[in-house]
């Protein structure tokens, strides 16, 4: 039975394409996003700062020029207009009284013209501000030392800055979606067989002929279930494999992402998601058996897919502290476990084992239910 369903499925060009697309979609999307973010970030490394009135603070300008990746350009005559019309992201304006105040050890004003509503320019603005503040700190320390005071005296409170720039946040968010993507691929990969082997049989009118054979109902249900699980797992393997292979290629350092996504993480991810596949298939089949046609089954299953995503989304939004019981509930458990895996949190193998067992046990229970459905006259004959 497994052989037949698999053969039938593999002949369906449509279902192969679905598997390919759904397994490539997630990695492809992520690859694209990450690359574009990395590019944008890289472009911030080398920054050109337009300065108006550079002659007013030659020491500062020289110091800036010495910083890595900084080039000074001449600022336009209408700095505020230039920034407002987005000709420039940020402009530094050094007023004429700068030298006078600076020389007298009084706060010397520098104007930093920027548009804080523009997301794109934010990294650059922060960079420039950071540079200027560093200069400020350096000069400040020097002045204190010149007066015989240790600069440490002036630092009453030392704040360690954990820089979480906007693009890093975005990166972390995207990585948070990986568990979701992988589980969706498990769902869509199995969908073709789940629907075809149940609702499809009903639509084609082949259920009767099939069930007249002396093969026991549970064997028939199990055969279809196994075939579906295999395709689901195959899709997961491809998706996860591609995702991880791709991460090895990406310039993650440019985004300051420190986590490692190597083979051990891949294996752990797989051992979390693969046991979910049989359960997903069992439920898909149960639901699809009620459908009278292929299309009807597909709409039930799409609904099921949305339902599956809800706990995942809730988990990302309410970051509840992970309690032990959460691991064992299907879907939520997988989501939680995967987030832990990606965050490189150590997890005991016992957890994996129990999760696997729970999922399989549930799958078998649902499978029994489906096999029972196959006895019902309404299901076999109902049109």
């Amino acid at each position, binding site marked *: 039975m497994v052989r037949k369903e698999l053969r039938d499925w593999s002949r369906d060009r449509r279902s192969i394409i679905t598997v390919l697309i759904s397994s490539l979609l997630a990695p492809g999307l992520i690859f694209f996003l990450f690359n574009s973010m990395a590019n944008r970030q890289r472009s911030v490394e080398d920054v050109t700062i337009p300065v108006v009135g550079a002659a007013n603070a030659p020491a500062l300008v020289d110091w800036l020029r010495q910083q890595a990746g900084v080039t000074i350009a001449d600022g336009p005559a209408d700095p505020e207009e230039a920034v407002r019309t987005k000709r420039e992201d940020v402009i530094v304006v050094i007023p004429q009284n700068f030298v006078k105040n600076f020389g007298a050890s009084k706060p010397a004003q520098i104007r930093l013209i920027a548009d804080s509503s523009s997301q794109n320019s934010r990294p650059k603005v922060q960079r420039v501000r950071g540079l200027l503040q560093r200069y400020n700190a350096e000069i400040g320390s020097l002045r204190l030392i010149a007066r015989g005071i240790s600069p440490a005296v002036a630092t009453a409170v030392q704040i360690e800055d954990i820089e979480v720039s906007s693009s890093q946040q975005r990166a972390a968010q995207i990585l948070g979606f990986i568990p979701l993507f992988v589980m969706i691929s498990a769902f869509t990969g199995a969908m073709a067989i789940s629907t075809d082997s149940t609702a499809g049989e009903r639509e*084609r009118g*082949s259920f*009767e002929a099939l069930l007249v*054979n*002396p093969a026991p109902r549970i064997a028939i249900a199990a055969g279809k279930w196994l075939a579906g699980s295999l395709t689901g797992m195959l899709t997961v393997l491809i998706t996860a494999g591609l995702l991880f292979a791709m991460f090895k290629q990406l310039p993650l350092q440019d985004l300051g992402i420190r986590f490692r996504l190597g083979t051990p993480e891949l294996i752990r991810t797989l051992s979390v998601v693969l046991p979910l596949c049989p359960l997903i298939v069992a439920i898909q089949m149960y639901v699809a058996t009620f459908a009278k046609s292929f299309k009807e089954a597909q709409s039930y299953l799409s609904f099921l897919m949305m339902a599956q995503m809800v706990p995942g989304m809730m988990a990302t939004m309410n970051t509840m502290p992970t309690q032990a019981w959460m691991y064992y509930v299907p879907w939520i458990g997988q989501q939680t476990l995967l987030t832990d895996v990606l965050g490189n949190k150590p997890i005991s193998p016992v957890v994996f084992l129990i999760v696997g067992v729970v999922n399989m046990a549930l799958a078998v229970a649902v499978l029994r239910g489906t096999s029972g459905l196959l006895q019902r006259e309404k299901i076999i*004959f109902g049109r």
Partner: protein
Amino acid sequence: MIRIENLHKRFGDVRAVDGVSFGAADGQVTGLLGPNGAGKTTTLRMLYTLMLPDEGQILVDGIDAVVDPQGARFAIGVLPDQSGLYPRLTAREHIEYFGELQGVTGADLRGRTDHLLKMLDMTAIADRRVAGFSHGERTKTALARAIVHNPKNVLLDEPTNGLDVMSTRAVREIIRRLKEEGHTVLFSSHVMQEVSALCDTIVVIARGRIVGSGSPDDLRRQTGQENLEDAFVALSGLEADLSTVAQSAKVEGMPS
């Protein structure tokens, strides 16, 4: 051999099968003849164990089909009214697949498959995907896959439904060959011609009840009719129905 005793099946208020008893003798062709809605398909479905009777007993080669449906299934091969095929598989694959479901494997399976393909004149189309098959070719495939395990009893529900002349003759020929091979054939139909040509025994069913049974000659004698069609109409009480319709039409002022 098939023996059916006092079968009842109700769908809500409708008594689809209302006390049906008959038998199909070994090595003979029995026809279940009746108008549409008479209960032929329902009876057959109970016989091939996919429906449970409300009352009554079904014995297939001595096996009680209600108590041991799986055992009964080993002894029957069925061509249901609706026998969908899998468009992406070839005819041979259909036969081998069902064969395995029926417990036939290995060399046995291959031998049986070849035999069936030959018997049904399907060797030319054996390895083509069924998606392109004509109605007749589909029927043959559906029939072949039903009897891979060489069951004693073969049940056919309206096998010539929708077939053209050539395919109908082919099915008739197949039924004859099955009888020659020693099978017990039971098929339902509302086509006089093939029932009279093929059947050793005819069971006439109407409105869920058996209204006559015997050989074609027996039935003609019983009803005193010259041909089978008239005998059938007499037995099934269709004439009475028609005249009732005509009477009520007169009352309502329509031309009769």
